[in-house]
């Protein structure tokens, strides 16, 4: 069979002979027919052989029909009598001369630039490239023979369709197998950080799914990430991509969390041949490079921390090994700090000290959470006063510690003024505003000052606080914690001398031994009470009759200063005519017990008189009469410095100034005493006579006062604000307090049926009475039979976790005072022991599943998917 092209003249040379044994040229006429697929067409008739016994002619075969791949041409000779004999004298396969190729891509779109070739055995391959824009090209075959259309990598012919009616037109479906790579996200550069940085073993990068999507999520922010892919031209043999090239992708979600809303998935927009498998955890498809030679697709990561998303791409069908990224869901929350300048040195650029920060980072990593300081605010130490409400700086010794001053705060002592934090609107719901302090105290309105009536047995007395701790000034209102006035109706608190027994003492009399001539009057002896209320008596001695005129005359003629002491010695009598006046005066003084007590139970008398010889006689006469009467009439009275003039125990107003704190658990009172030079009988202040036992000179003193105590707290949180005691000497426990308070902000823990019990969708929580570990301090009230049930217990405030609680302690309202050696961070009480180093598995699961777009407002009242 000859192989010939269509429409190419086909030369046939035939020899026709006759005879069986001898061959002779055929001499008669013959016809030649072309037989194509049984259709015979006579194209020469009544021909005869030439002289050489042969016949040569040409036949031009028709075109190969569109429906034919090729056809067989037979040249038949009809000869003999009546041309009844026939024989095929030539046979050829007729091939089309031109082949058309139309290249389309996988989406049946014209694909110009497809490099291919026509290959025929024995001929050089004919290189071809499909034309823009229709992706078509025609080729003229080199030889009439079978051909095939080939291409080289990266091209690949997926289909070669020859339609029955267009057998010479090849509809090719071609692909350009590229090596794919990610343009975005570029996980090898900031802001992406390897997930291993937090000690997590997942070989991926962190995607902060709780943050708003700023652009397309490819900057590590947000829960939806647009991946941009293109051809990787970097490696050996790499080829640039072409529009329409496929990038195959396989997205695998780890679904480590039970959170099921929103569900992690591959957004099908722009993804061809999408299919999912394995309960929608594996998604496949491909995207086509666009005019910019790039393609995009979006993965939705869900909101659960720790969930992983592995995105694999490849430029060849069913191969996804060109490039891979693993996105690990992380969350980021922020905090701002506020502190007085005095604390700055203990911080690192306003942030927690490095040792503390490291612990916080370590303990939050297992819940895929970063806690990052975004701002800090320092205020002057001068604001650390109750008036400025910046807390109070107390010497470390107040807390029985060494070192620098301690910042003490309470809800009153610390008040964050407007502008105290940034109030950054965009970040606020994901931020916690932390006011730092060293110690924090509280005393709610229900806790009122204790009232005391206690004994003093020394001037100064120091005591332990009987109730809670002492924080002066008051955490409630900044006033002194010692109060000695008030009352309903208002009254001052009193101190009182504690005298149980009478102290009977005979009064004493003190009289000057010699007359005091100052102001003396001749003939008169003046008796004057010199202590206490004034009282006096003039004792006039009668004049002697014979000397009377002379004496008067002399007195009238001579200035008094010139009168000698004895000038009138003989003028007046020297003996008392009667002591009645003196007796009466003394009796009156002795009868006035009130006055006696006022004077220290001592009658002090001064006798005024001239001091001449006769004057002395008169002085002695009076003194003797005075003493005689006093001694004969004096009687014991109930006298004690602690008794007032009426003989009642002294009392008086208390004074706040007597009190002071020694340290946070010790206070003292110092009673007032009179100044040193004060006469003994005037020492009536409680400190003057206070003593351990009641004696004639001392007695215990009862004082009354109010003392306001407070209790110390580790901190508190609410409304996106926290008060944190910076216990940087114990970074482990302090970091757990930070994580604990943050846990509360994240709605932990969750006791079903209690406040704020909105769970992340898909998760459940159990309390200590139904197989779980959560408990809360609310008691069921009558008529509910059991007081502590349904997770209610009588300890700690709010929802907490008792994950390592022994079963035998579980039912007890206080867990039998159990404390964990190693407990969950959400256990309700912390100390200086680092016993809460991590979140338990259950808390970890819930925190990982939490939607952390708002940690300021309660979870109650949110939509079901907002848990």
């Amino acid at each position, binding site marked *: 069979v000859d192989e010939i092209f269509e429409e190419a003249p086909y030369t046939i040379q035939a020899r026709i002979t006759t005879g069986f044994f001898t061959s002779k040229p055929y001499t008669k006429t013959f016809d030649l027919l072309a037989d194509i697929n049984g259709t015979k067409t006579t194209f020469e008739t009544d021909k005869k052989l030439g002289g050489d016994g042969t016949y040569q002619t040409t036949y031009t075969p028709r075109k190969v029909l569109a429906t034919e791949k090729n056809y067989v041409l037979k040249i038949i000779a009809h000869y003999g009598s009546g041309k009844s004999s026939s024989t095929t004298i030539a046979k050829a396969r007729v091939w089309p001369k031109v082949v058309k190729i139309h290249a389309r891509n996988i989406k049946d779109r014209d694909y110009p630039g497809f490099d291919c070739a026509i290959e025929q055995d024995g001929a050089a391959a004919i290189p071809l490239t499909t034309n823009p824009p229709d992706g078509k090209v025609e080729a003229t075959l080199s030889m009439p023979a079978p051909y095939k259309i080939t291409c080289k990598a990266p091209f690949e012919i997926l289909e070669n369709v020859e339609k029955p009616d267009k057998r010479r037109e090849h509809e090719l479906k071609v692909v350009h197998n590229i090596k794919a790579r990610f343009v975005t996200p570029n996980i090898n550069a900031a802001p992406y950080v390897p997930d291993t940085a937090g000690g997590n073993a997942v070989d991926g990068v962190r995607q902060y799914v709780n943050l708003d999507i700023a652009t397309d999520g490819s900057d590590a922010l947000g829960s939806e990430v647009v991946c941009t892919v293109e051809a990787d031209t970097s490696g050996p043999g790499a080829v640039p991509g072409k529009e329409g090239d496929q990038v195959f992708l396989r997205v695998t979600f780890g679904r480590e969390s039970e959170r099921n809303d929103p569900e992690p998935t591959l957004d099908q927009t722009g993804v061809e041949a999408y299919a999912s498998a394995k309960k929608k955890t594996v998604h496949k498809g491909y995207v086509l490079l666009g005019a910019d030679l790039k393609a995009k697709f979006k993965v939705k990561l869900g909101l659960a921390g720790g969930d992983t998303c592995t995105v694999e791409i490849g430029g060849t069908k069913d191969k996804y090994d060109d490039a891979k990224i693993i996105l690990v869901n992380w969350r980021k929350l922020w905090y701002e700090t506020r502190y007085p300048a005095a604390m700055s040195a203990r911080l690192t650029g306003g942030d927690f000290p490095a040792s503390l920060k490291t612990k916080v980072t370590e303990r939050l990593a297992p819940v895929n959470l970063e806690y990052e300081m975004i701002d800090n605010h320092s205020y002057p130490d001068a604001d650390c006063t109750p008036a400025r409400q910046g807390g109070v700086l107390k010497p470390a010794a107040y807390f029985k510690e060494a070192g620098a001053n301690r910042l003490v705060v309470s809800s009153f002592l610390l008040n964050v003024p407007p502008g105290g934090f940034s109030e950054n609107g965009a970040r606020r719901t994901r931020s916690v505003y932390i006011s730092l302090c060293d110690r924090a105290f509280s005393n709610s*309105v229900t806790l009122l000052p204790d009232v005391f009536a206690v004994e003093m047995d020394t001037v100064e007395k120091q005591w332990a606080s009987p109730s809670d701790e002492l924080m002066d000034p008051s955490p409630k209102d900044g006033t002194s914690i010692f109060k000695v006035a008030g009352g309903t109706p208002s009254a001052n608190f009193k101190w009182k001398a504690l005298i149980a027994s009478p102290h009977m003492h005979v009064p004493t009399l003190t009289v000057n031994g010699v007359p005091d001539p100052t102001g003396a009057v001749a003939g008169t002896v003046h008796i004057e009470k010199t202590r206490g209320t004034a009282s006096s008596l003039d004792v006039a001695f009668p004049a002697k009759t014979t000397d009377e005129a002379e004496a008067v005359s002399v007195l009238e003629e001579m200035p008094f200063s010139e009168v000698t002491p004895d000038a009138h010695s003989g003028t007046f009598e020297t003996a008392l005519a009667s002591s009645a006046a003196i007796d009466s005066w003394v009796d009156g003084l002795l009868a006035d017990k009130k006055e006696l007590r006022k004077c220290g139970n001592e009658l002090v008398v001064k006798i005024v008189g001239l001091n001449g010889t006769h004057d002395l006689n008169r002085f002695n006469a009076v003194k003797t009469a005075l003493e005689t009467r006093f001694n004969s009439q004096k009687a014991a009275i109930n006298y004690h410095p602690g008794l007032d003039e009426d003989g009642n125990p002294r009392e008086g107003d208390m004074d706040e100034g007597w009190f002071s704190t020694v340290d946070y658990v010790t206070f003292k009172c110092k009673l007032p005493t009179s100044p040193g030079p004060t006469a003994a009988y005037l020492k009536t202040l409680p400190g003057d006579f206070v003593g351990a036992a009641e004696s004639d000179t001392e007695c215990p003193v009862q004082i009354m006062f109010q003392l306001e105590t407070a209790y110390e707290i580790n901190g508190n949180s609410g409304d996106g604000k926290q008060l944190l005691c910076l216990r940087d000497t114990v970074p482990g426990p302090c970091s757990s307090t930070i994580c604990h308070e943050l846990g509360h902000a994240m709605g932990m823990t969750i006791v079903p049926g209690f406040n704020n019990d909105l769970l992340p969708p898909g998760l459940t929580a159990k309390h200590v009475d139904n197989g779980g570990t959560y408990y809360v301090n609310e*008691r069921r009230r009558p008529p509910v039979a059991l007081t502590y049930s349904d997770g209610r217990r009588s300890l700690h405030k709010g929802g907490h976790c008792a994950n390592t609680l022994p079963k035998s302690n579980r039912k007890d309202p206080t867990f039998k005072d159990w404390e964990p050696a190693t407990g969950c961070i959400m256990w309700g009480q912390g100390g200086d022991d680092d016993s809460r180093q991590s979140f338990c598995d259950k808390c970890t699961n819930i925190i990982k599943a939490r939607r952390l777009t708002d940690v300021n407002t309660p979870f109650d009242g949110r939509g079901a998917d907002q848990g």
Partner: protein
Amino acid sequence: MRFHWTTVVVLLVAAAGPAFLGGQSAKENKPMDLTPYKLPDDLFWTTTNRSSDPMPMRLLGQYNGVLVGAPAVVPIDLRKTLPAAIYYLGPVRQVASVKWDDHGIITAMDLQQNRLYAMQARELITESDAIKSPRPNLDQLPKGSMANVRSMDLRQFLKLPWEPTRFLLTAMLRDQVSNRAEVKLRRSESAYQDPEVAKYLEAERARMNPPPPAPPAGVSLPNYHRMQESPEIPEGPGIRMVQARVADLGRSARVPLYGSFLLPALPQEVVKQGYVEPRPVARDNRPAEARPLAVIGITLLITGADDGSLFVVPMHVPAWSRAAGDDGRTVVTGYFALDLQSVGMNTTNQTYFIYAFSGESMAGPLACALVGRRQHEEEYEQ
């Protein structure tokens, strides 16, 4: 042996007297007229510093024990709170070592509903992360007396219904019982008083049937009939209880409490037509029970002497007999017996004080010490 009897304590406290007539400590039980020290009602709302009230100021050193102060009348349309104060007076050493905040119990008995509301003093501390204060060295305390004073809105803390009724407020500290302060919640005189509403509500209560006995009677306990151990019915209105003074859990897991009562029945406690009887026919080899005359609310309150725990058992106790001398009111008698362990009382070894409340009657404290460890304790904790 069912349980170990060491000493059986029989206790009866009759109905409480008028408010502010009886501050009593367990040891002295000397009624004291507190009227002179009582704050005028309005001051409970206008001032907040209860430490300066006459109660602590004037009784300090004169009285040892717990006192309750509250307004006698609360006009519920004008006031939104029920301010109350607890005064705990005593020697400094005692007040400092047996702390009210750790051991105190506050109760309010709604006399109209015969329902007891109770809370622990520690619930007044609302801080979330308090550090336990260091225990003071008792030898370094002041010598003298002190008053621990707490102020609170009982409506908030006890979640009291805000409707006309009468409350009897009582505070307990271990075995010390305060005065019983009566507080009337009523509409003010300026509010419109609609007698028809009152009449209607009264009629409604009179139509209601009581709930079935609770906890339901068991094979042996709970039991609402006279038992061998049951105390005699009180001569006058009141409740009697007997209990093993010391119960050894190692010998018996049961802690039975036996009681009897003579109490007036509220209209809604009287059994009427349509009452759903718990066991009208015999079954489980137990005889059918007769229909009770009334089902009386009696609430047990148990507090731990060491841990200050509070455990409340609201009971609905059937009464089978009408009391002698019933003068038109329905006054009934009955018995109750139950195992405190089976109703959930905790098993911590310590002394417990048991109180019983019903209307104006209060019995207690009845001391019961738990010793020993319950066998197979784990089995009970599921």
